């Protein structure tokens, strides 16, 4: 077991308190259905960003093009659960748009498109 002092800093992960602080004590994303590959994109009519945190603004800038939740988490270098909370804030403000559908098993047309695409790379 690690001591309580050790807990606050991990060599690989850095300061472990940061994710919790970054979401300012909020614990659960309000937006449901944020999966690994759910596509998010900054709205072209985003509201005033002066009240946003650095992390929120980074997300807005990353999402100028559509990205998956997993990509946003990777580029921001925060755990998925944290990025989901941050994205929820932006979705609630209407600053980030999101696919509402849960992952569906692709149909034949979609599979054919993927097949053609993979052959073409």
């Amino acid at each position, binding site marked *: 077991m690690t001591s309580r002092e050790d807990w606050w800093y991990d060599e690989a992960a850095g300061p472990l308190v940061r*994710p919790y602080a970054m979401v300012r004590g909020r*614990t659960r994303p309000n937006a449901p259905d944020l999966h690994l590959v759910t*596509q998010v994109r900054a709205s072209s009519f985003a509201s005033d960003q002066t009240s946003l945190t650095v992390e929120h603004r980074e997300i807005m800038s990353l999402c100028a093009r559509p990205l998956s939740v997993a990509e946003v988490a990777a580029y921001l270098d925060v755990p998925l659960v944290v990025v989901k909370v941050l994205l929820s804030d932006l979705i609630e403000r209407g600053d980030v748009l999101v696919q509402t559908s849960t992952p569906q098993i692709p149909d034949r047309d*979609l*599979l054919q498109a993927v097949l053609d*695409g993979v052959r073409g790379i």
Partner: protein
Amino acid sequence: MVFVGSDDQLTVPTAVKIVIAGGFGTGKTTMVASVSEIAPLRTEELLTEAGVHVDDLVGIEGKDTTTVALDFGRITINTKVVLYLFGTPGQNRFWFMWDELATGAIGAVVLVDTRRLDSSFPSIDFFEHRGIPFIVAVNCFDGSQLYTVDEVRHALDLDEAIPVLLCDARDRESSKAVLVGLIQHSMNRLAAV
């Protein structure tokens, strides 16, 4: 496509995914890297030391936590479709991640190292039990191909309908052929129902 809070008509692509599974050291991230258009990205989930998924940060400051890393890559199919390739976490205790990865996936590639065939059993069981289309790809790195396709099929007790391919996960064309094999297998399964 429907958006929450949609205030403009620009759309986002449809995202699809393929799972690259297999035991530790079978070349999952190597395969992702060989076909991905970006260097593989890494994202992390939090979990408690007991291996329980943290989907809620309540009380997390008082718990010993660890992370499970997911490596993934991306192939932009066209302006409307993007494909993600997810390597499964190396340790099998992270089953909760496998469920999220497998939900809605086109299917899975189970990478096999013939020197450690038994390390692929849990992956095969997982996809078989959930009815998720999968193929087996034998990674022949460093000339380690000791067995024929039929021997591998027999050793893994695979149904005749499950394709078994030989590949080199480091090679882009070889990895592409594996993905093509999986997508075709998924299409055949779709046609059969």
